[in-house]
């Protein structure tokens, strides 16, 4: 059993941290205030460090630590969460990593050659589009259709609350792995996963006015007779639902990483503050009402962090040893992380804000950005809070706990 990061992992973590402390953190407020996206230099700098290439083999321009991709990605995304607490940059990155990994694993050669080198270079965004106006949680009920004809899918429908819309259409370039219905009669066994470059003809978009992670857009994508060439398909026809679940396993680990990173930083801010804020003649830290809260939060966060590292390792191990555990077992572990990290993080961040008092209510203090950012993952992004419980209950209690069967 080895709990330590390897020398290489430790070194990579330090490199990302040094980059972030010097370049990202100083611009985090400006990014959130301006709402003009993530500065190119930051993406470029992270790409130069190899962050966007973690999931991508050298052959496609990446620098994948093969067999340890998720472990490295977990490290990098936590560091980004610490530095950019609104979570726009961590989310942008984790979407490229998590969903990019699925392209590495299941994309056709042509798709990989077209997209992956550009993702590694930080020029191209890869996100996910499953959610529809009819609801995000009930994925088996999506309506966007993609009839296959003459080597193409003809896609019609609408996806909403999609991250990275402006980034992939206006600010940079990119696309989304999109869940479409290719066999209308077959329920979730009739879904296919296709990558759709966001600039394909027939796609129109609008954006939402979000309350947090202001440097990253979310919007809706409307598809009208969009022709998607067959080589954009991931895996096999009508297997999209299962690939989607596999992709969630990857992305949700990294979502938890972003939340843990942000929360760790929030707690450090509070810890440092209460040591120097003197009230009633002594530092705030001397009052157990405060110090015990911080101690408890630290304990909870440490447990989660370790479990997250374990889950990232389990995902890596599953790809190396296919019978190590089942994908469903991994989903249970991942959902524990995805259920805990945003909610615990939001709670801790709120307590941190109370420790800092009025200062925390100003934009000069990053805690408010953190709280607004992490709430995106409480309310639903990459799968709602309750949905994680549903998955854990399904896997732990059994089918008796599944309401939709």
């Amino acid at each position, binding site marked *: 059993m080895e709990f330590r990061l390897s*020398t290489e992992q430790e*070194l990579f973590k330090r490199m990302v941290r040094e*980059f972030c402390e010097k370049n990202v953190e100083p611009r985090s407020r400006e990014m959130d205030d301006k709402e003009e996206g993530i500065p190119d230099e930051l993406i470029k700098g992270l790409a130069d460090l*190899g962050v966007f*290439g973690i999931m991508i083999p050298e052959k496609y321009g990446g*620098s994948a630590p093969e067999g340890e991709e998720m472990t490295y990605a977990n490290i990098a995304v936590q560091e980004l969460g610490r530095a950019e607490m609104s979570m726009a940059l961590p989310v942008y990155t984790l979407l490229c990593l998590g969903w990019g990994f699925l392209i590495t694993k299941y994309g056709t050669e042509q798709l990989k050659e077209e997209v992956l080198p550009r993702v590694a270079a930080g020029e191209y965004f890869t996100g996910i589009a499953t959610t529809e106006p009819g609801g995000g949680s009930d994925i088996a009920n999506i309506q966007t259709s993609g009839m296959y004809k003459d080597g193409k899918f003809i896609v019609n429908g609408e996806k909403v609350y999609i991250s990275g819309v402006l980034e992939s259409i206006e600010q940079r370039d990119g696309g989304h792995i999109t869940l479409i219905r290719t066999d209308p009669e077959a329920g979730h066994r009739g879904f296919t996963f296709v990558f759709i470059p966001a600039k394909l003809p027939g796609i129109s978009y609008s954006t939402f006015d979000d309350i947090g992670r202001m440097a990253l857009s979310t919007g809706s994508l409307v598809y009208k007779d969009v022709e998607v060439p067959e080589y954009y398909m991931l895996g096999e026809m009508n297997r999209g639902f299962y690939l989607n679940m596999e992709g969630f396993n990857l992305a949700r680990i990294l979502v938890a990483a972003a939340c843990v990173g942000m929360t760790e930083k929030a707690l450090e801010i509070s810890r440092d503050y209460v040591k120097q804020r003197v009230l009633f003649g002594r530092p705030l830290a001397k009052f157990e009402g405060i110090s015990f809260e911080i101690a408890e939060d630290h304990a909870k966060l440490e447990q989660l962090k370790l479990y997250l590292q374990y889950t990232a390792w389990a995902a890596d191990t599953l790809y190396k040893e296919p019978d190590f555990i089942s994908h469903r077992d991994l989903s249970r572990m991942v959902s524990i992380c995805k259920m805990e990290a945003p909610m615990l993080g939001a709670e801790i961040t709120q307590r941190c804000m109370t420790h800092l008092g009025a200062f925390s209510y100003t934009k000069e203090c990053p805690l408010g950005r953190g709280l607004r950012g992490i709430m995106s993952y409480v309310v639903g992004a990459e799968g709602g809070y309750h949905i994680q419980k549903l998955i854990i209950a399904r896997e732990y209690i059994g089918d008796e706990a599944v309401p939709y069967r």
Partner: protein
Amino acid sequence: MNIIVCMKQVIDLEQIRIKPNTREPVTKGLPLLFGDFEKCALEEAVRIQEKHGGKVTALAVGSPKLKDTIKEALAIGADEAIILTDPMFNDSDAMGSARVIAKAIHKIGEYDLILLGDSSADEYSGEIPPRIAELLDLPQVGFARELEILEGNDQGTNTKTIRAVRDLEDALEVVELDLPAVVGVTSELNTPRLAPLSAILKAGRKPLNEWGPEDIGITADEVGANASVVEVLSNLAPVQDRKEIIYEDVEEGVAEVVKALLQEGVLTQ
């Protein structure tokens, strides 16, 4: 250009705690890193290599943890590394360490330039560069904040010199040295690069040699605690007395504090 960069691993200074009652620094169990000065030395070596070709060798004496620490140097751009971690070298004074380094450099044999941090981040004695230069009978310069390799021609043979701008606080001094030479650098020299993931992953595959006392021909009477002539009398954090002066009147307080800061040299007019 073959360049040897001497690098010392030091504990992460930012993580040192001071025991409040005894003022002793707590240094156990802290991560070991390279100091900023040696990182600048390495960065400069890699830049010179990028321009002039040749080879960069990282050389380090220290604890067995160096096997890990040295990977950073290899990831940043050293082509190979030599580490000396034998317990015989423990607790050497500057002279002892200089002997080990000089003998290792002598064994490497082919070199044009030896770069190192002007002082180490932990002890900051600044003795190593002149001592190894003396032992190897090479020209030496310290406090270098700018370096340039000059290639010339002397009666048909290529000559190489290095021009160093030395930071003497009140003035800058420009010195030219014939190579090979020993140059101690300051952190103004450059901004060290960060190692990208691909280089980190490849670092472990670069040649890493471990040399012991026999390899460099050194004996226990020349290094280690026995050979040390330096006795550390005290290593305590300075006493930090708070003046505890309270000014009721803000106007007056600001003026007094500014005056005090000027007096202590924290502010200049």
